């Protein structure tokens, strides 16, 4: 068993010794810093509510917004053709929530910044796909596969160690995004406490949404956790293409293409009953918690998990079959 760990270590070593990996990390760090600086510069961080007079500030703001809204409506009635954007009335709603529940808003800090960086997970997916696509195909390209396979280790173990290395890479990169975001957030905004809670809209896309109080760390864990499903599936897909076709470019291309077009593909075929069996109709497990975006009738959490498991097994078995049965000949 310790041999297996050594082999995973070997694969990690080969990933992290290369400059291209470090460039990926530098890129990721750069994106986080830019996100932090622009958040500080352009986003309403609710600093105005941090003093003891936050109730008065909110009431004033509400009155101000109400007035603006009335003026705006009057203007719209007078001149129906004009097009302009009214004041942000969701602010009023949010303020009312705070006032009703007598909660002083938590200031923006490292935890919220981490939560806001959840979208960076798609970049982590991208990097993981790149690694997964290369990890088998490159050994063939370099010719080193011959030296790997003439060891007293079964091909199944060689393949598994590579797959494990991909998952370890994804995990470490995720950890990097979380911790680096937190550090950047802490430096730019400070830390809002050990276990802070914030008020957030129930549904981000709905203008008239209600508000609720949520625990940030919980929200981070579930948010990142749900996105991991997609990450693992796409990485496994890229790994499979890489192993079957010995072609890293093809693997990156197809996996990235599918990652970005997956939802459109589901939409395109949504008239058909079988569309619910498409992988991408099932990767967003969050929809079952929210109760939103139910795509097809009869879809349940159990159904989606079963579909995911079937896809996963197919990907793994195909990789395994091609890798273990293949004659390793010249290029």
């Amino acid at each position, binding site marked *: 068993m310790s*041999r297996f760990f*050594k*082999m995973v*270590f*070997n694969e990690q*070593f*080969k990933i992290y*010794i*290369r400059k291209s990996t470090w460039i990926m990390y530098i890129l990721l760090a750069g994106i986080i810093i830019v996100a932090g600086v622009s958040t500080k510069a352009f986003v309403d961080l609710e600093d105005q509510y941090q003093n003891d007079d936050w109730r008065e500030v909110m009431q004033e703001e509400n009155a101000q917004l109400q007035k603006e809204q009335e003026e705006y409506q009057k203007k719209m009635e007078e001149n129906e053709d004009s097009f302009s954007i009214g004041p942000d009335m969701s602010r009023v709603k949010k303020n009312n929530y705070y006032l009703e529940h007598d909660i002083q808003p938590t200031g923006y800090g490292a935890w919220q910044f981490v939560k806001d960086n959840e979208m960076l997970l798609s970049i982590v997916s991208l990097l993981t796909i790149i690694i997964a696509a290369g990890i088998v195909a490159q050994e063939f390209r*370099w*010719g*080193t596969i*011959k*030296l*790997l*396979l*003439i*060891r*007293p*280790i*079964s091909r199944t173990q060689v393949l598994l160690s590579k797959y494990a290395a991909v998952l370890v890479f994804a995990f470490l990169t995720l950890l990097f995004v979380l911790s680096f975001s937190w550090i950047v957030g802490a430096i730019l905004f400070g830390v809002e406490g050990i276990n802070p809670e914030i008020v957030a809209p129930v549904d981000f896309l709905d203008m008239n949404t209600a508000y609720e109080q949520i625990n940030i760390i919980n929200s981070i864990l579930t948010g990142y956790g749900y996105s991991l499903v997609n990450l693992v599936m796409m990485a496994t897909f890229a790994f499979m293409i890489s192993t079957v076709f010995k072609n890293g470019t093809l693997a990156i291309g197809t996996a990235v293409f599918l990652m970005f077009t997956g939802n459109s593909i589901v939409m395109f075929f949504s008239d058909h009953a079988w569309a619910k069996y498409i992988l991408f109709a099932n990767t967003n497990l969050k929809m079952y918690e929210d109760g939103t975006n139910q795509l097809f009738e009869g879809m349940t959490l159990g159904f989606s998990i079963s579909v995911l498991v079937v896809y996963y097994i197919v990907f793994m078995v195909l990789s395994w079959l091609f890798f273990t*049965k293949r*004659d*390793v*000949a*010249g290029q």
Partner: protein
Amino acid sequence: MTAPAMELSNVNKTIGSKKIIKDLSFTINKGEVFGFIGPNGAGKTTTIRMMVGLMKITNGDVRILGKSIKTDYKDAVREVGAIVENPELYPFMSGWQNLKHFARMMPGITNERIMDVVKLLGMEKPIKEKVGRYSLGMRQRLGIAQALLHNPSVLILDEPTNGLDPAGIREIRKYIRKLAEEENVAVIISSHLLSEIELMCDRIGIIKNGELITTEYVHDTEDENLKQFSLEATPATEALHIIQNDFGFDVTTQDDMLTFKCAKEQMPPLTKALIEHNIQLYQVNMKNDSLEDKFFDLIGENTIE
């Protein structure tokens, strides 16, 4: 009797409907340097790939110290160190990192052992450099080092002197001889460089179109005194008659050329006999029977089918 270092029995390889390797059988003993030669496309590399389990054997078996590569893969391959085709290593890692990488895949290889191998191949200086900067000769040595880490009983080297300068070739040759003689390692070397094989090997196997044509000892002790002669004579049939019946040599004819083996001392009486029978002699040649001649005698032209 102990098992031979490597034994091929009726090895066949079929890809699609094409038979690449046909009924290959031979054994290589411990402490023997075996040269595996043949024209391009004869199936040398395919055979080597089957020996180490990179390719499936369609029919037949390869046994290493009696262990089948098909059914007992791990135990069989443990005894093998190999370079297949070019010495391809990770260019972005140093020589040392490459060796460590492969050492982790096999049990019980200490840093001291790696260092010993490095010293053996005279690579102490460039071992910390990236392999991408190595010359072909240095990569070749690193490839050999990689194959030797686990003290294999069988060492398989595909074109080991490729890219080495004459001094390097001599060093490798000496080293291979030493391995075979002192550590009782069976070494299998494939090459087109016939003169090289001749200097290094105890025995050669010649392969053509996937078939083993012959295996023979490089230094044929029993034939030491026999030289190959060819003579051009007319009428050839009469000359053939005389040489075969009166002297008892095995003669092959091609047009008016008669070729046979005999001791040098027997030639004067033979020519005298021919002249006495009124046979016209145009030329008599003694061949120094080098491996190259053997090779071309057996292979004919270098044809790929």
